[in-house]
């Protein structure tokens, strides 16, 4: 998901924690601390909700060491060098039984023009293919039609010997801002595993990190009800990020240092999907409004199911809350999402949009993650 969706998920999570803490401690003390004493505790949810991406894209990316860097410029374009370097790195990982990292730099021409090139791992024929593409314009990546190189200068390929496991789409585009990097890991079965942007969704996107950060709540508010609330907001805020990301394909490494590989996602959507982001933000925004209303001493709206069942918030807050929330979801959250979802499916079917394979979808998600965050 985009940063904003994570931020909103973190805030929504925080509002749920506040509602539950309010019920647990009673007397509306947490809500009063927020509304009357102007505590800013809910913001912690947003901050820690977006934090995993902040860690990855502001820190982890720069801590990644590279054994090889391929850095070409417009007057020194060599696709063979790209292919040779990658093929060599794959074999080196196998021969030396260690992780080998390669960075492919972008080719910047002006403040808005870049030369695009692609890298492809042909795992069946054990070849790396590199093709130099056109000059493209900015983030829209519109190609300049007269900028293609002659075919003899635009293609390079190199063979490698190791068995390569590469889970993603065959073609990786290298175009704007900073380029992608690859890690090649020797596996126990003698093959080499290739990871695209290896620094992303590792320790920065883990359950472990949420547990490590949670005590900051006590540092801020002590071992008070507010401190415990902050503890849960921080931990669940980080976890909300990992949970939201898991709806995509790429997944995260959940329990480092005990685990080293990413656990694949639920494959429900792609993280940069427009609809998925809109639905997530819409849901979170509405849930935040609901929870603010729930913890308010005067409810500005009541849901009819609770009234029909004769449940009052003053008599049984938990029951009132659950029934009202279900009612709210059924009335206001689900219908627009379902209508939009089926409308899009209908349009896609009518237009004959072909569903892409898991492998391609995973690859697109990864590429979008790099571009999406950078933009």
């Amino acid at each position: 998901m985009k940063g904003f969706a994570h931020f909103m998920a973190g805030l929504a999570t925080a509002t749920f924690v506040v509602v539950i803490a309010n019920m647990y401690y009673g007397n509306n003390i947490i809500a009063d601390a927020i509304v009357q004493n102007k505590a800013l505790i809910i913001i912690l949810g947003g901050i820690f909700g977006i934090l995993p991406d902040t860690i990855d894209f502001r820190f982890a990316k720069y801590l990644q060491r590279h054994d090889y860097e391929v850095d070409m410029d417009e007057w020194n374009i060599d696709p063979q060098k790209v292919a040779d370097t990658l093929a060599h790195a794959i074999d080196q990982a196998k021969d030396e039984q260690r992780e080998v990292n390669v960075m492919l730099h972008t080719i910047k021409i002006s403040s808005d023009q870049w030369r695009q090139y692609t890298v492809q791992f042909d795992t069946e024929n054990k070849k790396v293919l590199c093709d130099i593409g056109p000059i493209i314009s900015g983030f829209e990546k519109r190609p300049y039609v007269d900028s293609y190189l002659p075919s003899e200068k635009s293609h390079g390929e190199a063979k490698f010997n190791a068995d390569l496991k590469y889970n993603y789409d065959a073609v990786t585009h290298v175009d704007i801002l900073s380029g992608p990097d690859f890690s090649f890991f020797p596996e126990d079965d003698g093959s080499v595993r290739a990871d695209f942007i290896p620094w992303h969704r590792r320790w920065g996107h883990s359950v472990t990190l949420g547990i490590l950060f949670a005590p900051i709540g006590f540092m801020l508010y002590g071992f008070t009800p507010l401190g415990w609330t902050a503890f849960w907001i921080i931990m669940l805020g980080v976890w909300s990020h990992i949970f939201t990301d898991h709806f995509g394909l790429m997944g995260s490494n959940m329990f480092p240092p005990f685990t080293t590989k990413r656990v694949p996602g639920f494959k429900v959507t792609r993280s940069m999907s427009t609809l998925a982001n809109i639905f997530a933000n819409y849901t979170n925004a509405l849930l935040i409004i609901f929870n603010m209303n729930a913890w308010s001493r005067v409810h500005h709206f009541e849901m009819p199911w609770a009234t029909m069942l004769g449940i009052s918030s003053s008599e049984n807050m938990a029951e009132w809350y659950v029934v009202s929330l279900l009612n709210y979801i059924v009335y206001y959250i689900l219908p627009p999402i379902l209508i939009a979802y089926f409308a899009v499916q209908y349009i896609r079917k009518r237009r004959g949009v072909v569903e892409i394979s898991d492998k391609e979808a995973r690859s697109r998600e990864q590429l979008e993650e790099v571009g999406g965050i950078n933009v």
Partner: protein
Amino acid sequence: MTLMYLMLCILFILMGTAIGSLMSMLPGLHVYNVIGFFLLFYFTMGLVIDPMLMTLMLIGMLVSYAFVFTIPSIYFSAPDDSTMFILMPSQRYLKERKGHEAVVLIATGALIGVIAITIFVPIFMNVLGVIWDIAMPNMHWIIGAVIAFMLLSEFPKDFGRHKNPLHGLKEAWKTILAGYLTFFLSALLGIIVFSKTLVPVEHGFQSLMAPLIGLFATSSIILNLISKYEIPDQNLPKSVDADPREIAHGSLAGSVGGLFAAFIPAVTAGVGGYMASHAFAQKGDKSFLVSMGASRVVYYVGAIALFFLPTLHLRRGALAMGINLIFTPETVQQFYLVDAGIALAGLVSFFVVIYASRFLARVIPKINAKLLNLVVLGILVVLVYLMTSWQGLIIMSVATAIGLIPVLFNSRRSHCLAVILVPIWLNMSGISLGALLGLW
């Protein structure tokens, strides 16, 4: 309401639209500054002009500004490779001879934004009222969350070339830290300006004029003056060739962002639009340009609609506050009159933008943009001096220096908005930092 009065209303709306359109052609000049002058003028002529008519004229000016400001922002702030790290889509379009296309896309977004306001704000009148009642006691953390997102969502704009991890972190954090410095200094300036009236007391209501002009207008003009650029001949295509989905996506994102900004104190169109572009996972220049137009119009004009909305009467933006000095909205009829006025002014402004852009696209290579920028700089300096005296000029100079930081270090200019965001946030959080600093 008599037919004669209705005709007068239309006349004043059109007058406001015409004045606003002319003023908005000048780069760097904000309609709120001009409206300040008009209000001063009105205070002396109050017995002659009906407050509602004056209000409609000011609304016409605001609506036209929200549309016509596109012209100088596209044609008179040209890109220069030596000063720009990454081009904004509008600048890229100008460089690729498609300035007019950019204007049309932004104006289309703006027109859809106006339609959205005039139709949806009345329909969701009661819902907006309920949301406001719920959100109001929580506004301190909502604004705080906006600030937190602004600070956390800027990612490094580097090209990945570094000698070692430390060097990489240094390069990456250069732009981020410049952004934080801009945010901190702008916030400090805002706290000082909000806590102590530095300008002559009789012009106290314009105390934000000098910092805002410095942060956003003069810093941009100085950048234009030091940039080496040439505006290429512009094409005038028959179609902008935009996919309806791009227009719909951009309009929706921009309208939601603009409404959020109009609703939440201290949040502006830029911040709202930026958040909405993330929320709606926007892709592509065309969608972005459309959303820019929608966001700005919904922010400026939506604030006025919310002010007149019978269930809310929310004072957002300098115009609502200015109008509140001369007029108090009371009836549903007044709301619908304003709503209709907004629609009329929006429609007229749309065509003004299109025809002005067609004209400018033809003559732009012949215009000496640097001379124009110099003239506007002169006008702004005179305006600030007249409105806020020499004290205002000093504040403007300080703000200009702060406004140049993000430009020179390629960080986000929206950090300058801390000048409003932080003082209002602190105020809503019950923190009187101004008093702590001895500014009372």
